[in-house]
């Protein structure tokens, strides 16, 4: 993979980011059409460049472990939008047969190994996955996505120490979206940059503008390379912003409107689009084609979910044991 995203890759990443955005925008509509989607939806609107930039730098065999805000990670990793949407709708054709819903999506067939909605659970789980890769001398790495809020859980610190001690091929990606629930970063974190904590565990820690997919990609590539070479784990802090509430039932009464406006101007998708247009990498027609294509994928996913049955009640008893 080229160290700097070339124009083909930029377009690929753009398309993936648009797909994630459209997929989640459709979820917002479905939430508003009462009863179309069960439960609370937690969306990564505004954070698409982190998921896409990191995962674009990985190989298909590399493994990811995700958290409650997972749709973008999973789509970027190649999960089928139809079966993902069906799961979110609680249908039998969903990736997890309706057992999970939005919060704990596992798509192991694309190496999206597992997702935990228990904040901070991802890093130790990912250490286990990375240990298996190391144990079997695989040339693959594990990437774990966790939030700025999660960085306060003891489990994250334990995993960092263990991974560094055993030189596990594990890339920690802290998606700092400035919020943990209704607590702002400054209200919950003792240091200015979580990336600084790398040094405490003896691993490289780098900070990156998480709304600039090109920068995220370049950093992810070099950090993934470091992990792959057996040098041990690495930590990326990607600074971005949670444009919607924590979940779709959160109307952001505690968020400063000026801050929202500031970050709206830094939309990762729009800024990439403008840059590509300016650099002559993409034409308006191509952009339109991407828009049409992704909307069709999302429409197909929703139609698939709609047409799918709910699982039988009794099937709830299955899958507890192997």
């Amino acid at each position, binding site marked *: 993979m080229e160290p700097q995203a070339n124009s083909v890759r930029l377009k690929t990443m753009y398309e993936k980011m648009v797909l994630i955005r459209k997929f989640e925008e459709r979820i917002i509509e479905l939430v508003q059409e009462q009863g179309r989607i*069960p*439960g*609370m939806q937690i969306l990564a609107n505004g954070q698409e460049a982190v998921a896409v930039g990191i995962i674009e730098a990985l190989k298909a065999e590399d493994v990811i472990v995700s958290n409650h805000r997972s749709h973008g990670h999973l789509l970027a990793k190649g999960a089928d939008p139809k079966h993902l949407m069906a799961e979110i709708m*609680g*249908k*039998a054709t969903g990736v997890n047969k*309706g*057992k*999970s*819903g939005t*919060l*704990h999506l596992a798509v192991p067939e694309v190496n999206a190994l597992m997702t*935990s*909605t*228990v*904040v*901070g659970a991802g890093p130790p789980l990912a250490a286990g996955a990375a240990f298996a890769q190391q144990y079997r001398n695989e040339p693959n790495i594990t990437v774990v996505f966790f939030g700025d*809020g*999660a960085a*306060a*859980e*003891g*489990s994250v610190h334990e995993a960092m120490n263990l991974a560094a001690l055993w030189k596990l091929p594990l890339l920690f990606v802290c998606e700092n979206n400035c919020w*943990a*629930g*209704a*607590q702002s970063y400054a*209200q*919950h*974190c003792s240091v200015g940059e979580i990336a600084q904590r790398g040094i405490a565990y003896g691993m490289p820690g780098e900070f990156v503008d998480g709304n600039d997919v090109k920068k995220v990609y370049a950093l992810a590539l070099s950090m993934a390379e470091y992990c792959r070479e057996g040098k041990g784990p690495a930590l990326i802090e990607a600074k971005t912003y949670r444009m919607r*509430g*924590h*979940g779709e*039932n*959160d*109307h952001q*009464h*505690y968020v400063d409107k000026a801050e929202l406006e500031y970050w709206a101007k830094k939309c990762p998708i729009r800024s990439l689009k403008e840059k590509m247009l300016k650099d002559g990498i993409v034409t308006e027609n191509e952009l339109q084609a991407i828009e049409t294509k992704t909307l069709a994928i999302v429409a197909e996913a929703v139609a698939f979910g709609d047409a799918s049955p*709910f*699982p*039988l*009640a*009794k*099937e*709830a*008893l299955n899958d*507890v044991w192997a």
Partner: protein
Amino acid sequence: MAQLSFGQAVNNALDLAMNMDESVFLAGEGVGISIHYDPNMPSHGLLGKYGPKRVKDTPVSEAAIAGLAVGASCMGLRPVVEIMFLPFITLATDMLVNHAGKLQYLSGGKSTFPLTVRVKAGVNFAAGCQHSHNLEAWLAHSPGLKVVFPSTPEDAKGLLLSAIFDPNPVIVIEEMGLYWGKGEVPEGDYRVPLGKARIALPGKDCTLVSYGGATHTAIEAAKILSKENISIEIIDLRTLVPLDRDCLLNSVKKTGRLVVLHDATKFGGFGAEIAAIVAEDAFEFLKAPIKRVAAPDIPVPFSPTQEKFYKPNADMVVDAVKSILN
């Protein structure tokens, strides 16, 4: 008396406790500023009223939240901390099980730990098994921890005030789905003693024991059964530890039959303890086998069809009662 929602009743208890006693403080994720702006949320408005010294939003750190309560209570404060959802209490269990429940004993009775942990429970909000998991039997199984699980706004207030001023660690489980439901709540410093069950409905044919949100399922079942002239005595335990054995045994001695209902899974659930106590201490009064109505031994599924299947309902209680009559 005032008409308050369950959430407002909890809020009222917290407010009164903070007002009465300077050593009471709140801590937890979002107890000050919450994503919800809703007066039915238990700590709504308290940050504004008591300020950030006494209403502390914490990082996402359950072990530290619980440990904070243990340490501060040993120093003589009365912490009231919140763990957001019951499954996340697993992250706090070292502090609660190995410390809150044991340190007084280990000190030979010298130290006390007057702390309260509030935690939300519920199995019907389509969040799946990492948010919905009734672990009360785990907690009740640990010596040194009191466990409270109210079902009405009145009890929510009265039990919480007792919990806060109890000299022991108390875990108060709040059924989230009840937060918006209203009821009569006594004003002022109203306390419901820990360890006293409530006869939610007097009856003669069968004792139906429940607690928390499941009490409402029990009431629904009793209504259905009353149409067939079957009279159910519902015991709402209110406190699992300490347990009101007298209330339980007296009722069974009167009715001769027992059904236990809870939303938690059946195997090793709290219902097993109730059944065992009755089998040990009131066997000769039983006219029929004891029945348990509980969730199947699986994690809570997400899909609405399956979540509904998981949660014990009134029809299941009706069937259980009928199966032991005659």
